């Protein structure tokens, strides 16, 4: 089940930050290396910084409530039923393309015992829904789904009690059938009849009368996604598709590089262009608003040509980035340790792994619409956290949060903190300059690519020892990484705010504490090692803009751990699957490993075929969410170094399954996306700036590189907590591919990406000879 950390906006967390300025100065300066534990109150302060949290409850009793009922205990915050029996369910989570709209509808329908079509679901909207923080960290179903499950069960019970009173029968004589409450005597009431006089504005109870899983009719079935018919037929599915009356179109002009200052620009010439309404300039922030989108783009290009900038950026290069990271000031964090008795070590292995900066790379650049009308600002956004965004915008615009409403509307795929929030800030700043008119802003491809907060570059270093029987007796692990969470703690975290005449400063980076973790997510081995130390060198200074990307540090940590496990297995002359099971007592972990191995047809005695390899990997996401094991079979083409993935078999346990096809879709997608990260992707940059500005300078997987076959097998755990499926496959996929490439080429690749630029050509000759 999920963990929940305090949100920066809660009173308790604010209290922790009262004495924070000194530490903040320390962090901004970033020039000292001080042990994390030496900071007074550091633990409490660190708890501010989680990307996954919903605000904590105000009362101790609410803290015992299931899921996010703990933060929003009122039943009518989640479910409302009107006199016409219309059922509306509210979630503070957003549809990011993962299918939660459908899944949450199933959950509510099951517990209310109605058809899914009878449920109207409202997603993240600061004006309507509970504040559930960010839609991130695979938390949606665990936190919001669990809240809806329990709220719906309690509302059903209250409806039955109300109906029992109206019909003068015991509740045991009543049941729900086809959306009506039916008595054994044949009489029935609609939900609208039953809800009359029933006050749902009451706190939920800790225990709910849940439907037994064996009786589920909707939950656990592959209900088709409610959003797909519109998406395959040109429906208005995205914020990009919204058209409001009188809507204007805007584009921002981004500086040529980080921190550049605008010296001058010929605004008047651009304002004379056809359709241009206004050039908006505030310090080094520059944008243009026009009647038509193409006019806005032409005007933006004209502004770009006339603007003169003073540049200051001096970035590391891909050749120097890892040395740069190793030399940056650190905050030392002990992510985990264990010390016990063990047999003497007979051999020790040591390896270092690296990951470059990765782009989220949504196919649709970020977009938002903002409308300042009568002193109230409404923002339609695909941001992951509408409530935190509202807080940031309130500070940016010097408005009261109550005067700003942020409404989530789906955008293109979201794989973490992309420029959605920045685009919302653009829209709000520009809308303020043209009050009364809705303003739509979409970023250009090169803006999305060069200005997004990337997934951080990382270094991991691992040293482990084996005893004479081939068991790991010691494991020493280190991580160097920037923050994986530069989300909207303040206005300064919004890119446009940093370029205003009165600029805002980003809140200093804070690590996400374990067990969720940030750069150290999944860094503690789940295996039964008698001794381990896991140290996270948290690097506050960020040479390149970074933030959360799907899985955070889990991608690199699982890639490292599960690659190194294979290296250890080889040193112990053991089969990789057997070697994992040898060190794993977790039953559910063993189950997914066994299922993946069986379905794949894993054969410890398989003959070695040069250029051809199989690889295996396993992880439990965050060591507390979904279990996933994966086997990959691939070929490395000697002449080109191309990798052809012939077969992938995954096995996943995400607790009680809400929608099996939805889980499969998430896991399949995660496998392919992770394969793309692992094999092909790296942000390009030089001293002058980011040089990945399109899909040719940031190549991702294309159809010729897609696996021939991917099969995902599910283990259902009826009645068990929802564990979330969105990120479970990112890390294991990378390691399984690495292990298969090692098997195919005889060489271990520890630096990502593995197949970019045909680099595996250098290995394939060895495989032929060896």
């Amino acid at each position, binding site marked *: 089940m999920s963990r929940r950390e305090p949100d920066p906006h809660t009173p308790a967390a604010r209290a922790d930050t009262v004495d924070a300025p000194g530490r903040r100065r320390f962090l901004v300066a970033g020039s000292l290396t001080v042990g994390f534990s030496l900071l007074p109150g550091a633990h409490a302060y660190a708890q501010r910084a989680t990307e996954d949290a919903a605000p904590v409850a105000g009362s101790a009793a609410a803290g015992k409530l299931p899921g996010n009922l703990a933060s929003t205990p009122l039943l009518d915050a989640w479910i409302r039923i009107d006199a016409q029996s219309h059922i509306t369910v509210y979630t503070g989570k957003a549809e990011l393309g993962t299918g939660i709209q459908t899944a949450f509808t199933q959950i509510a329908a099951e517990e209310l015992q109605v058809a899914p079509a009878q449920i109207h679901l409202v997603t993240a909207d600061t004006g309507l829904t509970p504040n559930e923080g960010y839609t991130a960290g695979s938390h949606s179903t665990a936190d919001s789904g669990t809240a809806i499950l329990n709220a719906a069960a309690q509302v059903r019970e209250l409806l039955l009690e109300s109906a029992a009173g109206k019909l003068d029968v015991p509740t045991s004589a009543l049941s729900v059938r086809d959306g009506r409450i039916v008595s054994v005597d044949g009489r029935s009431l609609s939900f609208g009849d039953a809800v009359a006089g029933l006050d749902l504005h009451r706190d939920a109870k800790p225990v709910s009368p849940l439907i037994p899983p064996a009786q589920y009719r909707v939950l656990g079935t592959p209900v088709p*996604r409610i959003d797909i018919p519109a998406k395959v*037929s*040109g429906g208005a599915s995205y914020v990009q598709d919204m058209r409001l009356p009188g809507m204007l179109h805007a584009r921002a002009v981004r500086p040529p590089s980080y921190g550049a200052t605008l010296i001058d620009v010929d605004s008047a010439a651009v304002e004379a262009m056809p359709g241009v309404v206004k050039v908006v300039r505030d310090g080094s922030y520059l944008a243009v608003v026009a009647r038509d989108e193409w*006019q806005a783009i032409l005007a933006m290009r004209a502004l770009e040509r006339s603007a003169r900038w003073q540049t200051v950026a001096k970035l590391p290069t891909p050749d120097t980035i890892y040395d740069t990271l190793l030399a940056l000031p650190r905050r030392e964090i002990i992510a985990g340790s264990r010390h016990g008795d063990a047999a003497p070590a007979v051999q020790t292995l040591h390896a270092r792994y690296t990951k470059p900066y990765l782009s989220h790379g949504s196919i649709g650049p970020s977009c938002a619409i903002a409308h300042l009308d009568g002193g109230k600002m409404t923002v339609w956004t695909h941001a992951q956290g509408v409530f935190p965004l509202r807080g940031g915008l309130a500070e940016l615009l010097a408005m009261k949060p109550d005067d700003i409403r942020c409404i989530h509307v789906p955008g293109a795929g979201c794989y973490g903190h992309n420029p959605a929030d920045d685009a919302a800030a653009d829209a709000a700043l520009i809308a303020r300059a043209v009050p009364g008119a809705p303003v739509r802003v979409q970023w250009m491809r090169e803006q999305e690519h060069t200005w997004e907060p990337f997934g951080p570059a990382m270094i991991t270093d691992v040293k482990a020892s084996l005893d004479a029987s081939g068991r790991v007796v010691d494991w020493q692990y280190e991580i160097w990484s920037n923050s994986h969470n530069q989300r909207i703690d303040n206005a300064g975290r919004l890119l446009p705010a940093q370029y205003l005449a009165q600029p805002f400063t980003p809140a200093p980076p804070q690590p996400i504490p374990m067990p969720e973790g940030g750069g150290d997510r999944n860094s503690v081995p789940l295996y039964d090692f008698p001794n381990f130390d896991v140290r996270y060198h948290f690097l506050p200074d960020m040479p390149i803009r970074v933030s959360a990307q799907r899985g955070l540090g889990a991608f690199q940590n699982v890639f490292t751990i599960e690659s190194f496990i294979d290296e250890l297995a080889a040193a112990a002359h053991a089969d990789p699957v057997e070697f994992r099971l040898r060190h794993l007592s977790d039953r559910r972990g063993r189950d997914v490993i066994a299922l993946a191995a069986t379905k794949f047809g894993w054969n410890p005695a398989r003959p070695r075929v040069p250029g051809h390899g199989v690889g295996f990997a396993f992880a439990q996401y965050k060591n507390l969410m979904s279990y996933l094991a994966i086997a990959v079979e691939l070929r490395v083409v000697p002449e080109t170094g191309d990798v052809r993935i012939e077969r992938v078999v995954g096995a996943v346990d995400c607790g009680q399954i809400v929608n099996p096809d939805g889980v499969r879709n998430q896991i399949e997608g995660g496998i392919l996306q992770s394969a793309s990260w692992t094999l092909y992707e790296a942000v390009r940059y030089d001293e002058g700036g980011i040089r990945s500005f399109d899909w040719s300078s940031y190549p991702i997987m294309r*159809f010729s590189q897609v696996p021939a*076959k991917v099969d995902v097998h599910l283990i259902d755990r009826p009645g068990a907590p929802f564990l979330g499926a969105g990120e479970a496959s990112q890390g294991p996929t990378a390691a399984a591919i690495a292990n298969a490439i090692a098997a195919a080429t005889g060489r271990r690749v520890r630096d990502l990406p593995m197949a970019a630029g045909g680099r595996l050509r250098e290995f394939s000759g060895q495989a032929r000879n060896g």
Partner: protein
Amino acid sequence: MITLSVNGVDHALDIDPSMPLLYALRNHLNLNGAKYGCGLGQCGACTVHVDGKPVFSCVTPASAVQGKPIRTIEGLGTPDRPSPLQHAFIDHQAAQCGYCIAGMIMRAQALLDTRPTSTEAEIRDYLQPNLCRCGTHMRIIGAIVQAFGAVAKQHTDDTHGAHA
């Protein structure tokens, strides 16, 4: 004035001749299907048909396609009456965020219209210009293969029927 023939209907539009077809479709004809992805012809999210061929509408000036038949995904079918290809995408639940999907369907439709007996390998090869970031490729391929099979079967049934 620029005259565009879209999904069988002529539209006279007072737009800048340099305007890419994408913006004419989206902002002047209120069609959502074609998406802005890159503006460079690198991702295929904006794919529509001109003269039966798939084109990147983001790099095709509206003035260059005057008088030519333009087809968008809105011309294929509706949620209630989807085309075979749209139907197959629903059957396979072949979308996550779905932003690339209209372009995928239009690209695949062009192949279906011209080479309906294409193999899975040929389908994959033909889809090379189109990007998906969610990793929905397996389902996209599955849906297209199903639609090709359904159309081929329809063709066989029709042929068989004609002989009967």
